[in-house]
C-alpha cells in the first residue's frame, strides 16, 4: 500500500511542480541555482551593452586655437583632421558656427597650432578637404546651414573654398537658397573621372538629399534623390561592394531612417532603406561608414543622441551607439553597442593597438548636473565585437564633434573635439581640444 501511495504522491507532486514550472520560462536548473551568472550575451541582447569598465587614461587633453572667455559660448559644428597645406603635418579644419567662419588650425614645425580664418560662411555645419578641381592642392568643401537652429527658410548653401596652391582661398558658392545644408562629401558618382558631391539638407520640415554632378568649370547640375527633412549625413561609400560609389544617408526628425542610394555606376540611383527606428524621437545624430568588423565590407556606425526633440535640449535614456553589420545584398543587422545620453559623432580607430577597431564617441547633451556625466568615452573592442564602455572625460562638457587621426605623427590615433555650448551649464567650456593618444604601441587605423 505504501509504495503505490508514495508513487502516486510523487507523480502528483511532480505533475504540479512541472505544471508550475511550465508557466514560467525557468528551467529546473534555474530553481536550484538561483544566482544567475552574469551573461555577457544576455546583457548585450537586452540592450544594456557591456558593464562599464574602469576608466583608463588613454588620452592627454590640451586646448588649441583661440582662448575661450567666460562669456563665450563656443559652437563648433564640425572638425576634421587633414594636412591642408600638404607639409607633412596634420592640420585641423573647423566649422565654427558661433563665429560663422571656417577656420584652419595650421600645425607648425614646433607642433603648435596657428589659427587662421579661411572664410565667412553662415552656419557652417560640415567641412572637408578635397582636391575638387584636380589642380593638386586641397580645396575646402563646406556645408552651410545658414543658421544652426531650426529654420524652414531656404538659406542653405554648398560652398567650396578654392585653394590657389598657396593656401589662399576663394569662396565659390556651388548651390544656395536651398533647405539648410548639413553635409557635403565628394566622390566620382557618375564614373566620368571628376568629383561630384553628395549633399544632405536638414532643412527643418522641408529637407532634401541630392547629388551635384560636376559639369566642369565649377558648374554643378543638381539631382534630387529624396525630399525627406532631417538629413544629417550623406556619406559616399561603396556600400554594396560592386565597385562604384553609393550614398549612405542618415535622416533624423520624425523619420529616423538610414538610406542607401545605390548607384548603377553612371549616376542613376535606386533608394533602399536599410534601417529605421520606429521611435520618432530616436535622435539620430551621426553615421560613419567603416568596416568595423574588418570583414571587407562597409558597416555603418551610428549614434542617436540629438536632443532637440523637446526643449531644452537634453540627452535621453535611449540614446547610445550601435552598428549596422553589413551582411551582404544591402542587408544590415542592428547591434547595440552601448547606452550613452547625447551620443554624437562616433568614430572607429584602433585606440589600444590590438588590431581591432574601437569606438570613440562624444556627447553634447549628457546630464551635466551630474558631475560624473561623461562628454567623451570609448568602447573598447575585445576583438569579438564585444565592447566595454570606458570613461575618458567629464570636462569639458558639451562635445558635439570628434575627429580621429594621427595629429602628432607618432603612429597612434589622436582625437580632436569641438565644443558646442548651446545649453547650461557653462562652467566647463571648450572650443577645440586635441587628445593625444598615450597608449603604448597603438597604431593608427581608421576609416
Amino acid at each position, binding site marked *: 500500500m505504501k509504495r503505490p501511495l508514495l508513487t502516486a504522491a510523487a507523480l502528483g507532486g511532480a505533475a504540479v511542480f512541472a505544471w508550475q514550472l511550465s508557466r514560467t520560462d525557468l528551467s529546473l536548473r534555474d530553481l*536550484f541555482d538561483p544566482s544567475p551568472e552574469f551573461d555577457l550575451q544576455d546583457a548585450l541582447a537586452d540592450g544594456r551593452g557591456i558593464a562599464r569598465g574602469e576608466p583608463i587614461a588613454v588620452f592627454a587633453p590640451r586646448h588649441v586655437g583661440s582662448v575661450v572667455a567666460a562669456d563665450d559660448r563656443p559652437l563648433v559644428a564640425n572638425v576634421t583632421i587633414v594636412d591642408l597645406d600638404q607639409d607633412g603635418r596634420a592640420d585641423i579644419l573647423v566649422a565654427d558656427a558661433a563665429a560663422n567662419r571656417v577656420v584652419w588650425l595650421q600645425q607648425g614645425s614646433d607642433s603648435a597650432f596657428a589659427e587662421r580664418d579661411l572664410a565667412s560662411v553662415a552656419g557652417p555645419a560640415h567641412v572637408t578637404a578635397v582636391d575638387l578641381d584636380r589642380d593638386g592642392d586641397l580645396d575646402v568643401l563646406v556645408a552651410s546651414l545658414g543658421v544652426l537652429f531650426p529654420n524652414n527658410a531656404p538659406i542653405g548653401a554648398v560652398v567650396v573654398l578654392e585653394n590657389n596652391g598657396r593656401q589662399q582661398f576663394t569662396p565659390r558658392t556651388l548651390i544656395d537658397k536651398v533647405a539648410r545644408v548639413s553635409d557635403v562629401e565628394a566622390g566620382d558618382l557618375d564614373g566620368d573621372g571628376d568629383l561630384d558631391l553628395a549633399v544632405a539638407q536638414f532643412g527643418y520640415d522641408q529637407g532634401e538629399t541630392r547629388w551635384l554632378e560636376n559639369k566642369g568649370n565649377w558648374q554643378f547640375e543638381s539631382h534630387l534623390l529624396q525630399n525627406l527633412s532631417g538629413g544629417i549625413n550623406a556619406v559616399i561609400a561603396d556600400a554594396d561592394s560592386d565597385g562604384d560609389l553609393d550614398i549612405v544617408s542618415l535622416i533624423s526628425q520624425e523619420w529616423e531612417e538610414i538610406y542607401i542610394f545605390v548607384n548603377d555606376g553612371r549616376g542613376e540611383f535606386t533608394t533602399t532603406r536599410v534601417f529605421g527606428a520606429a521611435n520618432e524621437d530616436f535622435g539620430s545624430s551621426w553615421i560613419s561608414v567603416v568596416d568595423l568588423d574588418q570583414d571587407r565590407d562597409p558597416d555603418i556606425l551610428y549614434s542617436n543622441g540629438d536632443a532637440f526633440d523637446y526643449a531644452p535640449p537634453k540627452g535621453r535614456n535611449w540614446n547610445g551607439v550601435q552598428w549596422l553589420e553589413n551582411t551582404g545584398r544591402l542587408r544590415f543587422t542592428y547591434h547595440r553597442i552601448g547606452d550613452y545620453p547625447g551620443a554624437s559623432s562616433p568614430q572607429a580607430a584602433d585606440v589600444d593597438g590590438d588590431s581591432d577597431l574601437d569606438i570613440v564617441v562624444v556627447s553634447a547633451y549628457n546630464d551635466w548636473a551630474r558631475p560624473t556625466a561623461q562628454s567623451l568615452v570609448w568602447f573598447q573592442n575585445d576583438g569579438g565585437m564585444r565592447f566595454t564602455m570606458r570613461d575618458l572625460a567629464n570636462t569639458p562638457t558639451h562635445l558635439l564633434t570628434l575627429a580621429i587621426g594621427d595629429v602628432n605623427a607618432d603612429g597612434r590615433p589622436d582625437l580632436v573635439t569641438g565644443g558646442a555650448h548651446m545649453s547650461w551649464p557653462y562652467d566647463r567650456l571648450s572650443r577645440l581640444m586635441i587628445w593625444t593618444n598615450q597608449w603604448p604601441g597603438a597604431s593608427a587605423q581608421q576609416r
Partner: protein
Amino acid sequence: MARRKRATTVSGGPPLSALPNTTRSPRVRTALILVATLLAAAAGAWLVSTLLIGRAVAARLPRLPNPVTAPRLAAEAMAAADTAARRWPSAGATAELAMTYHASLSSSEAIKAYALAASRDPSDWRWPYYRGLLLEERGDQVGAQEAFSTVILLAPAHGLARFHLGEIAFKAGRLADAEAAYLVAQAATLTDAPAATDHLPPRRGIPLSAYASLGLARVQLDRGDRQGGSERLAAIVRAHPDFGTAHALLRRLGKGEADASLDDGRAYVPPSDPWLDTIVARSWHSDLLLKHAAIAGRTGATARREWLVRRALSASPQGLDVLLEAAATERAANRLSEAKDFLRQAEAVAPDDHHTLVEQGRTLSEMGRLAEAEAVLRRAIRVRDATAEYNLANVLDRMDRWDEAREHYDRAIAINPYHARAMNNLGIGFSRRGDPLRALPLYRRAIEVAPNVVDSYTNLSAALGALGRFPEALEATDAAIRLDPAAADAHSNRGIALAQLGRRDEARAAFETAVRLVPTHTDARRNLAAINRPY
C-alpha cells in the same frame, strides 16, 4: 478483483455474506488516503515549487540602477517596488516593479522586469506590450517585433500593437507586412483601453486610424504608387487638417492641397496611448513628464500639459528645464507674473544662463515693465546671442530709444544674417521715421530669407506706397494675400494702392474686406469712409 479474491482465500474467515456491510470501507479509506496523499503531495509540490520559483525569479530581478541618477521621488519609488518584489516576486509585484522602472526611465531594468512579469503571468498582454515600447524606443526592432507579436497572440484586436508592428515592418522594408498591420490598426478601436487615470487629463488628437492611414500612404509611395499615396494623404489632410506630418508629406509630392504653414515647425506627435498614459501618470521623473508635457503642448492639451508640468515641479523643484517649462506653460496661459516668478527661480539655479535671462526679459517686456526688461536683457547680451540682441532692441524700440534699438537690431543681424524679424523691425523703424527708402532693402531681404511671412510683404507694400510706387505696392499686397487671404493689413494696403492708381471700386472692395476681417481696423474704416465720400 484478484486482490479481493486472494485476500478472501488467505484470511479463511467467515463467509462474506455473514459480515457486516463494511467491505467497501477499506476501499473508501484507501481511496481517501490516496486522495489525501495526492492532495498533500500536490500542495507540498505547489508550495515548494512556488517558493523555489519565487526565489529564482527574485534572483533574476534586475539590480537597482547604480548609481541612481533619477530624481529622489523616482529613486524612492524604485527602491520600494524592488523591496516588495524581492520579498515575494508575484506576477503583480514583478509587474509593479517593471512599471516603476519604466516610469523612472530605467529602461534596461524595466525591460528585464517586464520579461519576468510575463513569465509569471503569460496571459497578460500588457507586459510584452510595455516591453515592446521600450525595445522600440531603443531601436531594437527585432525585439520589439517579437514583443508586439506576443501581444497580438493574446489580444488580436490590439490596434496600437498592430500599428507598432506596421511601423517596424515598414522601417524594415517589409511593405506587405506593414500594409497588413496598418489595415488592421486602421479599423481597430480602443475598446479595451484602460480607464482614464485618476488625475492625468486625456490628450485629444489625431486618431490611430489616421496614423495607420499615413502608414498606408507611405507604403504606397514606397511602392511607387504616387497617385494612390497622394490621394490617401489628401484624404487624411481633409479629415484632420492639424496633421502636420501628412501635410508635409503631401507637400513634398508637390500637391497644392497641402498647407505650408501647417507643417512649418510642427513637430511629429505620436498617437495617443492610454496604456502608456498609465506609466506617465505614475512617473516621478521630470524628463518623462516634460516630454509628455511637450507633446501635450503641441496638441493644445493645456490642462494635461499643466498637470504634467506641476508633477515635474514636484519631482524636480530645482530642475532648470522644469522651471523653464513651467514658465513657458504660464506664459502660454498668459499668466505672466507666475511665468516671471519661475524664471527668477531658474535664474537662481543658473545665473549665467542667457537663455533664461532672455525669457525673463521677454516676459517682463510683455508685462510692460520695460526698464526691468532692459536691465535683464543687457545682462543676457554679455553672451553673443542674436535672440538676446533682438529682444533688447525690441524693448528699446518700445521705449522710443531708436538709435540704441537700431544698434542692437544690427547686432542681431550680424550674429544671425537670416534674422528676418530683426530686419522687419528695423525696416518698420525706418519707415516710421520717414525713411522708407532705407526700409525697402530690409523688407526685401526679410522676404528672401523667410518667403512665407506675410508681414514682410505688407510692410514692403506700405514702404513702397509711401514712396509713391503703387504698382509695386500692389504686387506686394497681392503676394501677402496669396499667403494669407485673411491678412487685413494687406487688404487695407491694397485698397490704398488701388485708390492711388484710380481703381476706386476695387479699392472700396479691398477696404471692405479689411473691415470685414477686422471690424476695428482703423485705417481701413477711415479709408473706406473717405472713398465713399462724394467728391
